[in-house]
């Protein structure tokens, strides 16, 4: 019935191979169209899958987990095998829709945005590669397949961030992104190893069985006072945190904005960065039943990241960086929601809210990035002080951007309101402190988003190189589509579609939470309106008053510098360099030393071969005497 689902990732793979290997030969636009068409087919197939899966049958009880395709890929031992397959359950079907939708939009958008760029077909090849990897990740039937595609996603992100490979900052950013996530993946890998050791399986189907039979071995296993399962799940989360740029592994994401803007929209806002959330959601049963401590960690890290990123976002001037920090903050929300979630029925509200927010966030954040791309396309700058009064020139961009800002600020009845509200409710039920944090962040979010909005679209005109003009249709259609999705996706009945135990449960609007959260959102907007609607000195004055605090925030609390210090100074200078030195001079020196000593000694004893007959005679007689002494008198 679902056999065609294998085509969803395969089409982008074929597109990647075709455009990658043959694309050089033909006109660039053909690659673009080919890629877009391919992805369009994937998108349609995904939608078909989603519709048949969610609405096709009458699911009185839980949604089934379907594996329409699976093949053995590698055998480790009799029990441990890696399979490649397609797994359909509510969350993966939902993710299929998200990924293909955003990817398709980005494909269309890039036709306009990347038009005339050198390496156009390369761009499309990489996009296809990324989409393939991301889809493979989403439909993974086992944790190792997920890890495989996890890595592929990482590398395609690396390639796309470094797309402008002649720009040193882009190269550095791509390197940073890859290495940081790779470091996180090490944790993921070790987590997988521990899990596989305990359970002897990689299969999600077995792992996420709520009865937890496979974890029987784990009882009593512990390391440094923490149980093995907690270790495993924290390490797995480390992988997720790396991809989702959770604090303290967040540093790569702002830099990743060096990539082309559509890439930022696709990878660094809507799809790849939510892979971490997806991973935790995917293993939620394991977290919840086997390692509740690890889930606690997830919640706190999520909460802290969302606050931390929101604070930084207020001070940034690069519009893509503001959006990047906003992404961080929203990802923190999702993680937190998972962290505070329970299992089954109403208890699983957090899980549902997280996935819901993942969905809506993908739509409105992609919209924001694509809108930002449209703006950058028009003014050729990333900095908001180069912008102002653009609402006249870019009407469609303006409207869609405004919708997105309202959505993220949580203004009802836009989609962001629903998902965020449910997260807040879940947090409130579980942990008051985290609720307070998130509540504050909701206000901050509204404030920095509207700071951005007012700075770009209102205020004075700047000196533009040429009059900004609205982007071509290829770029505005995706904007409009996503705006539409942002507005209406809030009404999707997620509580009956994607839940922790795959069962339907009822949700209702929690007015005690909703009203204050809307109010604080509006407060943020109002504050931004006061400060940034018109050009004024007030923000600068406030900044000056805050002094060190402001500078620290502006410099992202110097985390980049700290990491740079650790890598450049410590790893390079204090580990690598001494090792290189040690190798050359001590180890190799020892080996060469053996040679040198041999040579030296032979030079020395060469003197014995003096050609002087009498020396020989002396040696001979003395040697004979010594031998005689030894043999006759000692032995």
């Amino acid at each position, binding site marked *: 019935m679902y056999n065609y689902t294998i085509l969803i990732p395969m089409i982008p793979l074929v597109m990647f191979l075709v455009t990658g290997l043959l694309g050089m030969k033909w006109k660039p636009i053909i690659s673009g169209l080919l890629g877009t068409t391919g992805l369009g087919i994937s998108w349609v197939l995904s939608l078909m899958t989603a519709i048949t899966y969610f609405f096709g049958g009458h699911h009185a009880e839980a949604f089934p987990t379907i594996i329409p395709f699976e093949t053995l890929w590698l055998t480790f031992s009799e029990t441990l095998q890696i399979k490649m397959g397609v797994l359909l359950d509510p969350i993966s079907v939902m993710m299929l829709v998200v990924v293909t939708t955003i990817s398709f939009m980005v494909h269309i958008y890039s036709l306009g945005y990347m038009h005339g760029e050198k390496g156009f077909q390369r761009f499309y090849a990489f996009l296809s590669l990324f989409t393939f990897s991301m889809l493979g990740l989403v439909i993974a039937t086992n944790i190792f397949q997920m890890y495989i595609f996890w890595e592929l996603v990482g590398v395609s992100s690396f390639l796309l961030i470094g797309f402008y490979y002649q720009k040193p900052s882009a190269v550095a950013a791509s390197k940073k992104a890859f290495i940081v996530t790779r470091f996180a993946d090490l944790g993921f890998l070790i987590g997988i190893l521990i899990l596989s050791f305990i359970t002897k399986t990689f299969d999600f189907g077995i792992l996420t069985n709520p009865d937890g039979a496979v974890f029987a071995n784990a009882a009593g296993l512990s390391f440094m006072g923490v149980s093995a399962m907690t270790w495993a799940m924290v390490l797995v989360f480390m992988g997720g945190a790396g991809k989702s740029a959770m604090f303290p592994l967040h540093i790569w994401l702002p830099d990743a904005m060096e990539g082309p803007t559509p890439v930022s929209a696709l990878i660094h806002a809507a799809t790849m960065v939510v892979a971490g959330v997806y991973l935790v959601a995917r293993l939620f049963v394991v977290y919840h039943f086997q390692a509740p401590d690890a889930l606690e960690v997830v919640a706190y890290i999520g909460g802290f990241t969302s606050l931390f990123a929101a604070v930084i976002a207020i001070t940034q001037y690069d519009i893509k960086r503001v959006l990047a920090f906003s992404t961080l903050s929203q990802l923190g929300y999702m993680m937190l929601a998972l962290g505070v979630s329970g299992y089954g029925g109403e208890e699983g509200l957090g899980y549902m809210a997280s996935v819901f927010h993942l969905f809506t966030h993908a739509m409105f954040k992609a919209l924001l990035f694509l809108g930002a791309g449209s703006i950058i396309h028009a003014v050729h700058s990333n900095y908001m002080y180069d912008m102002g009064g653009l609402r006249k020139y870019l009407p469609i961009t303006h409207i869609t951007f405004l919708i997105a800002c309202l959505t993220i600020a949580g203004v009802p009845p836009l989609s962001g309101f629903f998902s965020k509200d449910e997260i807040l409710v879940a947090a409130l039920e579980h942990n008051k402190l985290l609720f307070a944090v998130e509540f504050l962040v909701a206000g901050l979010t509204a404030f920095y988003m509207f700071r951005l909005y007012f700075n770009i679209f209102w205020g004075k005109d700047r000196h533009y190189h040429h009059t900004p003009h609205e982007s071509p249709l290829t770029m505005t259609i995706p904007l409009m589509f996503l705006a539409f999705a942002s507005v209406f996706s809030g009404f999707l009945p997620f509580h009956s579609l994607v839940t922790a135990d795959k069962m339907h449960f009822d949700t209702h609007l929690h007015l005690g939470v909703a009203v204050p959260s809307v109010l604080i959102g509006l407060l943020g907007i109002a504050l931004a309106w006061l400060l940034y609607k018109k050009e004024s000195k007030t923000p600068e004055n406030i900044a000056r008053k805050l002094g060190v605090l402001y500078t620290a925030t502006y410099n992202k609390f110097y985390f980049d510098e700290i990491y740079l210090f650790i890598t450049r100074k410590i790893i390079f200078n204090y580990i690598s360099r001494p090792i290189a030195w040690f190798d050359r001079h001590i180890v190799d020196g020892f080996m060469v030393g053996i040679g040198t000593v041999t040579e030296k000694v032979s030079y020395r004893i060469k003197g014995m071969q003096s050609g*002087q007959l009498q020396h020989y*005679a002396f040696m001979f007689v003395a040697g004979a005497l010594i031998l005689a002494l030894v043999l006759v008198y000692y032995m």
Partner: protein
Amino acid sequence: MIEGIPIQHFLIVSTLMFFIGVAGFIMRRNLITILMAIELILNSVNINFVIFNRYLYPDQLQGHFFAILVVGIAAAEASVAIALIINIYRKLKNIDVENVNELRY
């Protein structure tokens, strides 16, 4: 066999002679002197052969014959050595052993 003289006395004499020869061989520079030192060594060995023959195995003459053969070899050796020395002298205009070191390392 000489009544009243133990074999040890002979042997001590020959030993001393032998090591005098060795010392001469090592000390002296002149090739001919070295040759003479060798003759001393050979001679002391000859004495030993004869003594052992006389004192320990008087029923045979093996030591005796060995001594004779050694004398013959010594003659051969001396003749070749002297030929060499003369040749060296022609080349180097002296016969210091230190100058004959072509075979060093």
